[in-house]
């Protein structure tokens, strides 16, 4: 036994270069798997902790509920914890800030992630707590005891099922201040206030207007979105009355992912396969070196088993060293990788996560390392017990098998001369060894070619992102956030003028918009739509939410291409009895089948529809009925490329002037701005100045959307290229060691060639050409798999976007020639470098010495 261990170690020592390659192969694979798992686990822990602080612990929210329903949800089989608060409408300030007013419920406040930083929760009528951010936006100091005046606005459905607005003045005494982390307010958020409320004793709202909101946490974290949607369907709650805590759900999904997400999993597989190819090849090559000794040992009486023990012990040794090294390197990798990469799903900054190493991840890495070594050494171990078969293998190594003279042989002869022809023949001496190194080098091409072809391509970014396509030709869109009341905010004609006068502004467009309702006979509505919105058939007449809007003429001209039936110009037609409208009759089902579907059955040009739109009278708002004629219908594609609500509501476009007159609105909801090329940044800064004293004015910028996308792309490129270089490193070691051995065992042949008159230059050129052929073969394989992957990407893109959004004129697949050439160049350089040192040695070969080496 001892003698075998001794022999095993002696060989590892003698073949030092190969041993280093073996150990490094295992270590790099372990490092990557372990490191990426550790980074992912640390980051997802950190992410979840942050998300809890920012978005609370609840997973979904249901709104517009009655008391009974809150009880049912509370006792639902899937719900583990819930909290209920009354919805008392919105608090609206004079400058148009609007926030949701809830009843005080300690659980609700806690599950929503608020911390009370000052004062106490309301315990008397008329007391209120507000977010620190709200006070800041309102321009108030954080002074407890202060009385603050608001309007209370509550949208409700009357006994006939008609939507109505309740609006009254009301003042509250500030008794406490809530807060959330700063990061939360940098993203999308809606403000809330909490007041004292007791059923039957309230003086905030008439009792019959009160609805309830319930936030829930489920028993199991598996399939959260699906389960929550099932609850919604179970109680027939409409789409508009339901929202998931999407950030939390993403964080929980990350957290509960087995070890890593699919994203990194794919890399781990690639790297492990490359390592397996390396180790397998190295062991096989070792066998060639050890063959004489093994033969001798068999001759003096070693059993097959004992011979196999030698290789077995070698692989065990390599595994142990590789594992220890890999784990250490993995820890080091984690420390720097955690800052460099973000493997989590949300945009939360996790670069400051502390490294968390769990036994589970260590164990995982050990398993991966062991699997890699076992899979790759099992065949060599088995073969080592059958020397006769090794000899056969070696024989085949020295000859070319059956000779075939195919057409391409002649071609190669022609273009690369005798040395090229020899090189080509040599490459195929050991088919398997060639295939293995060619495949291992091609491995990274899959990622590389796809990334270069697809990631951060400007044309693709702007074609794929609905946020960007919805910008149309505009560089900026100015609007107001969710925390505003549209009737008390808006852009004035002065604002429009000021923006038009900014140097570099090419075009300014205006849009008036408001939320209104469509009156329908319940039978006229699409069935799926009804189910989606929780509409039952009990009432004959139903109201569904729509966006009513008006654009300036210039923008309307630009929208002409989205007309499906009818004419955009019908909007200017004043001879009709009713005003004409352009209607978008589709909604996007974001919860179930992710498709565009119709809303009103059989809606045609010429039909008269009844809508209700908000009309301002004094400081009150009421909904008023209005008949309009469908003058044109918009194509499905509008959702994707138009100024759409992204499928949330039906859209009704009316003549702008007319809409402003009947609604009494004098300001615009949205201003769109086109700037002259190169002026974007300047215009952006100037507009920002104008928006400074409008608390919730928001500006979307095409440039910053593209930037965001690119940042995401760059993040992906960064981590992908790490993987690509690791794979190429491992594959490079494989090529280097294999080529070295291939050349070493041919010393005698090289000497012969020199003796019969091959010059040293020709010999070197033959060897370099051999390595170029390896590179070319790898490039071909990489081109095929990379090309296929890019093709699949485009196919998926086209299918998804044309089915999902009815989008046309999507970017079409083009064979990624440049990425393939780039990859080929890299691969060929690696192959040439790998053989260069050996080639140099062969060039200096002493002919006589070479002739004397017979085995």
């Amino acid at each position, binding site marked *: 036994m001892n003698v075998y261990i001794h022999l095993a170690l002696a060989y590892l020592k003698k073949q030092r270069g190969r041993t280093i390659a073996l150990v490094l192969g295992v270590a790099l694979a372990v490092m990557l798997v372990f490191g990426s798992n550790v980074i992912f686990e640390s980051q997802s822990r950190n992410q979840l902790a942050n998300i809890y602080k920012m978005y609370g612990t609840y997973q979904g929210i249901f709104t517009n509920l009655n008391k009974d329903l809150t009880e049912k949800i509370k006792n639902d089989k899937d719900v583990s914890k819930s909290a209920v608060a009354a919805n008392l409408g919105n608090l609206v300030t004079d400058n148009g800030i609007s926030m949701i007013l809830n009843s005080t419920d300690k659980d609700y406040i806690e599950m929503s992630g608020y911390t009370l930083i000052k004062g106490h929760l309301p315990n008397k009528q008329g007391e209120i707590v507000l977010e620190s951010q709200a006070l800041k936006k309102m321009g108030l100091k954080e002074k407890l005891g202060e009385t603050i005046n608001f309007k209370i606005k509550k949208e409700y459905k009357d006994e006939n099922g008609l939507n109505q607005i309740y609006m009254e003045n009301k003042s509250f005494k500030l008794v406490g201040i809530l807060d959330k982390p700063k990061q939360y307010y940098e993203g999308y958020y809606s403000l809330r206030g909490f007041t004292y409320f007791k059923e039957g004793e309230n003086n905030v709202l008439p009792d019959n207007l009160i609805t309830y909101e319930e936030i829930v946490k489920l028993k199991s974290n598996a399939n959260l979105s699906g389960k929550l949607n099932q609850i919604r369907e179970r109680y027939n709650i409409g789409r508009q009355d339901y929202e998931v805590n999407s950030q939390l759900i993403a964080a929980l999904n990350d957290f509960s992912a087995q070890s890593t997400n699919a994203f990194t999993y794919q890399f781990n597989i690639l790297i492990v396969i490359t390592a397996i190819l390396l180790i397998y090849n190295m062991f096989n090559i070792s066998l060639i070196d050890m063959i004489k000794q093994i033969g001798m040992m068999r001759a003096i009486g070693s059993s097959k088993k004992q011979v196999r023990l030698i290789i077995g012990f070698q692989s065990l040794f390599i595994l142990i060293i590789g594992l220890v090294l890999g784990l250490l390197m993995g820890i080091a990798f984690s420390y720097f990788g955690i800052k460099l990469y973000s493997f989590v799903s949300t945009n939360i900054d996790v670069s400051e996560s502390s490294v968390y190493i769990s036994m589970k991840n260590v164990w995982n890495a050990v398993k991966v390392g062991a699997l890699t070594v076992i899979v790759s050494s099992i065949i060599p171990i088995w073969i080592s017990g059958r020397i006769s078969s090794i000899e056969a293998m070696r024989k085949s190594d020295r*000859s070319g098998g059956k000779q075939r003279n195919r057409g391409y042989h002649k071609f190669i002869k022609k273009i690369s001369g*005798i040395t090229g022809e020899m090189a080509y023949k040599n490459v195929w001496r050991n088919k398997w060894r060639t295939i293995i190194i060619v495949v291992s080098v091609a491995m990274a091409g899959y990622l590389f070619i796809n990334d270069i072809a697809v990631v951060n391509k400007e044309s693709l970014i702007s074609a794929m992102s609905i946020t960007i396509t919805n910008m149309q030709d505009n560089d900026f869109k100015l609007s107001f956030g969710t925390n505003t009341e549209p009737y008390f905010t808006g852009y004035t004609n002065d604002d429009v003028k000021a923006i038009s006068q900014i140097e570099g502004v090419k075009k300014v467009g205006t849009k008036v918009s408001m939320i209104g309702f469509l009156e329908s006979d319940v039978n006229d509505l699409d069935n799926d739509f009804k189910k989606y919105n929780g509409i039952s058939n009990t009432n004959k007449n139903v109201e569904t939410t729509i966006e009513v809007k008006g654009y300036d003429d210039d923008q309307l001209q630009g929208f002409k291409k989205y007309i499906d039936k009818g004419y955009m110009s019908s909007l200017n037609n004043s001879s009709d009895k009713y005003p004409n409208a352009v209607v978008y009759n589709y909604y996007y089902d974001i919860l179930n089948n992710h498709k565009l579907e119709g809303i009103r059955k059989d809606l045609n040009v010429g039909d008269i529809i009844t809508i209700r739109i908000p009309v301002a009278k004094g400081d009150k708002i009421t909904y008023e009925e209005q008949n309009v004629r469908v003058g044109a219908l918009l194509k499905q594609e509008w959702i994707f490329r138009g100024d759409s609500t992204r499928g949330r509501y039906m859209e009704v476009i009316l003549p702008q002037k007319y809409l402003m007159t009947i609604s009494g609105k004098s300001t615009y909801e949205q201003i769109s701005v086109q700037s002259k090329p190169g002026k974007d940044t300047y215009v952006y800064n100037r507009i920002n100045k104008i928006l400074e004293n409008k608390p919730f004015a928001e500006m979307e910028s095409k440039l910053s959307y593209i930037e965001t996308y690119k940042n995401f792309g760059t993040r992906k490129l960064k981590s992908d290229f790490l993987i690509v270089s690791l794979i190429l490193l491992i594959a490079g070691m494989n090529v280097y060691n294999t080529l070295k051995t291939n050349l070493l065992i041919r010393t005698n*042949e090289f000497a012969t*060639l020199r003796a019969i008159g091959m*010059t*040293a230059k*020709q010999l070197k050129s033959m060897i370099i050409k051999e390595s170029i052929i390896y590179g070319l073969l790898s490039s071909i394989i990489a081109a095929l798999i990379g090309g296929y992957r890019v093709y699949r990407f485009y196919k998926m893109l086209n299918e998804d976007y044309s089915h999902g959004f009815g989008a046309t004129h999507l970017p079409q697949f083009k064979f990624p020639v440049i990425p393939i050439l780039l990859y080929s160049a890299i691969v060929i350089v690696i192959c040439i470098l790998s053989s260069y040192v050996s080639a140099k040695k062969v060039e200096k070969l*002493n*002919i006589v010495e070479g002739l004397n080496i017979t085995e």
Partner: protein
Amino acid sequence: MVILKTINLSKVYGKGENKVHALKDININVEKGEFLAIVGPSGSGKSTLLHLLGGLDKPTEGTVEIDGVDIYKLSEDKLAIYRRRNIGFVFQQYNLIPVLNVRENIEMPVRLDKKIPDKEYIDDLIEFLGLTERQRHLPNQLSGGQQQRVAIGRALAAKPSIILADEPTGNLDTKTTDEVMNLIKSSIKKYNQTLVLITHNENIAQSADRILSIVDGEIQ
């Protein structure tokens, strides 16, 4: 006419303790068209001499002149070119290129010279070697005698003026030895070539024009 000439040719392997004086002050002249046999005990320096005659190694001292050209004054590449045009080697181990078939092996020196092999001549040569049926075969599909015939073919392909053979029949049985020797002899007659051949075979040595005996690196 002297075609091959050595002047004070010496070869020392190794240094210090391990110094081996493989050749000492060899002076020989070989006439054009001559068949010179070299004999001597194992380790006496026969191969060393042959290698130096063919420009495969560097002498420690002395010169080798072929047709009046001091071959070791040529650059490495020039020497290689010189070899493929003027010298044909035949080795005891045949030393064929395993990935090339019979015809390709034979054409090799011509192809290395970036010339297109003269098809008729190669056809003749292959027929002369009795390998016509085998020209598409790979070396490992041939017997030892056949392989050595291929090696001879390779040595003749470029119509060199000198053939250097190191125990070409060392691995062959008596019958095959006779066949191979007959081939070599009829070839040098046909093409008027000079042959320097190392052998342990008394009969072969006797059939040479001249026998050179080497012992301990010195001509006896």
